[in-house]
């Protein structure tokens, strides 16, 4: 990048100054929000199933992403599909972080957050709007969901809707399992799905919901059904 002589002068200069960036970012996020030019705010939240990236537009929570999805890529895609004005702005996602924390601590059984479903369209979106009706601690089959969404034959499409759910955990696609009682696939990996169902008390470790491809090795599983 730097040519010939001179580059070495700056070689010892650190690439980044973390303290300064934290400070500058917070300040920029506040200023951008005030100016109405912050379209997508994001932060990460620690959870028992790994770091979660959460992102929100002015309309509501637009994306929850698992670490296995690669947060950099998720942000890149948000920049291209929603708006390039993407900024880390933790304060804008305080409610989301708090409710997730409560959920993982078993102190919350449903999320009460504005959702922005713009990343899902058509039948997929139709399926997603029905998922919160599956009560905490219970499961439903892909077939049941297909029927509820008005198309009993669209079992695979329900699977796709779940596999491409932009708001996993909050929109509980983890509660959708196969009709034969096995767990099915999950965007965040089968182990994460298993952990969520166990957290909610819907899965009895070693019980009938355990499928043959469980618990680990989720990376080689197809994303769905």
């Amino acid at each position, binding site marked *: 990048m730097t040519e010939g002589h001179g580059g070495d*002068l700056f070689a010892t200069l650190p690439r980044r*100054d973390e303290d300064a960036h934290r400070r500058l970012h917070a300040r*920029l996020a506040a200023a951008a929000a005030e*100016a109405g030019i912050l379209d997508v705010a994001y932060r990460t939240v620690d959870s028992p199933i790994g770091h979660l990236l959460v992102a929100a537009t002015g309309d509501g929570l637009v994306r929850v992403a698992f670490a296995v999805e690669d947060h950099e890529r998720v942000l890149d895609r948000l920049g291209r599909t929603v708006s390039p004005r993407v900024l880390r702005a933790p304060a804008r996602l305080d409610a989301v972080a708090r409710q997730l924390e409560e959920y993982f601590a078993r102190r919350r059984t449903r999320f009460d957050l504005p959702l922005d479903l713009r990343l899902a369209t058509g039948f997929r979106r139709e399926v997603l709007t029905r998922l919160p009706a599956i009560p905490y601690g219970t499961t439903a089959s892909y077939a049941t969901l297909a029927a509820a969404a008005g198309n009993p034959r669209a079992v695979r499409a329900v699977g796709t809707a779940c596999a491409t759910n932009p708001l996993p955990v909050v929109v509980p696609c983890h509660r959708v399992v196969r009709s034969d009682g096995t767990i099915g696939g999950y965007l965040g990996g089968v182990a994460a799905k298993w952990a969520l169902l166990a957290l909610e008390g819907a899965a009895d470790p070693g019980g009938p919901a355990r499928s043959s491809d469980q618990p680990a090795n989720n990376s080689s599983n197809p994303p769905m059904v």
Partner: protein
Amino acid sequence: MERHGPTVLRVCRAVVGPDGADDAWSETFLSALRAYPRLPAGSNVEAWLVAIAHRKGIDELRARARRAVPTGDVPEWATTGGVPGGWECELWSALRELPLRQRQTVAYHYLAGLPYAAVAEIVGGTPAAARRAAADGVARLRRMLQDTPGGHPAGRAEGEMS
């Protein structure tokens, strides 16, 4: 933003000094956020950001000149020496001694990694002139840092100079 933030901060610190760098950085990214939707696809985002930072840096220096009250006691740039991460304070104070044009070309070429053609587009003039300004700047920095006791290992590379 995450990707280019550090580079732009280095450039701002080099051009306007650690003091005004925060303001210049913030103004650069606020301005970039406003203008981003109009940036043609396929543009070099880093060069574009450096061009904005260039304008904001000049604004910042002008504002500072207006604010400045001649007291004869020139306040030192805040040094960040000793802060974890070790921003070389000798380098910053040496940069301050350079004429603005040299500081700019050195920062845009060596810190942001822009080719001289892009540097020239930002600062004006020809690529050859930009190259000359940066080379003069680097040579001068090297001399200054060599004179600084315990300064910088830059002297070691003296043999490279042509």
